[in-house]
């Protein structure tokens, strides 16, 4: 009996000790796996909805730091905000304006992508886009003569840079809308890196950053919206399995209007001044997000944004030629008007066909 009492005392002591340990750990408030802490916020900025889903001990700090950064970039790069440097440039009447080195660098980068795409990407197309009413939602089909006059001011040769001093020729205007959200995604990647974020997704309109992998350690599942069903974001043309990658989609279905039975979409071909009619309904450009090479400057996110617009303008054949010969580490998903989804070889193991979508799927090399 004495033995039984002795063991019961010890047993009770052990249980209580374990219980106290349990309670003490609980008092710390830290989850068992800090990587599973999550913050998810939505932000309306840069004329789009952004969703940041961030994991890790510093997830809340990183998500709100990303929001602050989006606000800063919106103020800096907006074409319509009278306080922005882009507005100042567009209103300078041909006079030079000194801009932040950040703006200067983005203009240089824009010029570079204009060069490599043969002008298919062009930030000086802004007045033509405005003439169609896409920037104000007051849609109209401009007169051909008006477009021809506006096109005389389009082209990066009308942008003159000397260090941080920039001058636009009279009549030329710029809009960084085709590259700003890509740059914003580069900045978000930098914020995630600085805060040791293990995994996250950042969706900035048509720009996505898949940072790390999912909590179950499989790649993030990134859907590409079906351009045939523009009002339903949940109907997909293709699904990509991505880890540490940027993916940017451009498609005419994202903004368009109809007049006299004809559809006019918002991506304008700088060569003609008319909406691009290339046989593609969307282009997705995918590139690795290399954590080691992040420096906060325009990087792979910016590249994907600029190229997705340009390749949409080019059309299937020219876009695939570009992919084969450009020497850039990118892959593509092209959705065509004749119901094909063309995937380049680097994504052969990363794409998933959508059953019942009506598309046929091809991998090209």
């Amino acid at each position: 009996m004495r033995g039984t009492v002795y063991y019961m005392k010890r047993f009770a002591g052990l249980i209580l000790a374990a219980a106290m340990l349990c309670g003490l750990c609980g008092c710390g408030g830290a989850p068992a796996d800090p990587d599973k802490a999550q913050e998810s916020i939505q932000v309306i900025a840069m004329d789009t909805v952004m969703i940041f889903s961030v994991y890790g001990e510093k997830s809340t700090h990183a998500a709100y730091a990303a929001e602050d950064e989006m606000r800063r970039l919106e103020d800096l790069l907006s074409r319509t905000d009278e306080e922005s440097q882009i507005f100042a440039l567009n209103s300078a009447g041909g006079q030079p304006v000194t801009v932040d080195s950040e703006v200067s660098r983005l203009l240089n980068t824009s010029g570079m992508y204009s060069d490599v795409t043969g002008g298919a990407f062009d930030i000086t197309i802004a007045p033509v886009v405005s003439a169609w009413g896409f920037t104000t939602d007051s849609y109209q089909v401009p007169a051909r003569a008006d477009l021809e006059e506006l096109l005389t001011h389009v082209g990066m040769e009308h942008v003159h840079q000397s260090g941080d001093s920039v001058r636009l020729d009279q009549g030329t205007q710029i809009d960084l809308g085709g590259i700003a959200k890509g740059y914003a995604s580069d900045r978000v990647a930098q914020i995630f890196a600085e805060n040791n974020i293990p995994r996250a997704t950042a969706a900035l309109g048509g720009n996505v950053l898949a940072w790390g992998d999912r909590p179950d350690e499989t790649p993030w599942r990134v859907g590409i919206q079906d351009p045939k069903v523009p009002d339903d974001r949940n109907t997909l043309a293709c699904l990509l399995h991505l880890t540490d990658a940027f993916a940017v989609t451009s498609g005419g279905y994202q903004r368009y209007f109809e007049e006299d039975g004809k559809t006019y979409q918002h991506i304008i071909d700088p060569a003609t001044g008319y909406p691009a009619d290339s046989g593609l309904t969307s282009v997705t450009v995918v590139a690795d997000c290399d954590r080691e090479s992040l420096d906060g400057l325009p990087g792979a996110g910016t590249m994907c944004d600029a190229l997705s617009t340009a390749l949409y303008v080019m059309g299937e054949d020219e876009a695939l030629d570009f992919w084969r010969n450009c020497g850039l580490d990118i892959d593509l998903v092209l959705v065509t008007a004749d119901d094909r989804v063309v995937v380049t070889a680097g994504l052969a193991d990363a794409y998933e066909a959508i059953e019942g979508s009506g598309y046929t799927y091809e991998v090209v090399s």
Partner: protein
Amino acid sequence: MKSSPKLRPCGWDALVVLLVLLLAVGCGAAVWGGNEATHDLTAVISVDGETAETVALSSLSGPEERTLTANGYTLHLVLSPEEVYMEAADCPTQDCVHTGHISRSGQSIVCLPARVIVRLEGGQKDESAPDVVIG
């Protein structure tokens, strides 16, 4: 040495140990399991970046309408135990109305002109669904 009968463990002692144990396990589960707990499917309505209302759909007994006035526009949102949709809006784009009915966690209705976002959170997660959609 002979122990006093008062110090011998009895049924009450066992009960105390059990209670402490249950409390500790309960506290631990609440703290450790908190991040993974699935709560009811909830509509989070935000206006101009601020959460205006959070509605657990299971708490509704039938369809309810909310009138949202923001940024000069008026939106009529319908919430029901099964789904959420924008019935009408006087915004110029009508994207929010065209989005249709949403019923799964992660789906959202957005009205950019009014700066209104309605997002479904919580509920059962469909592991095969996309984590994010670009387009």
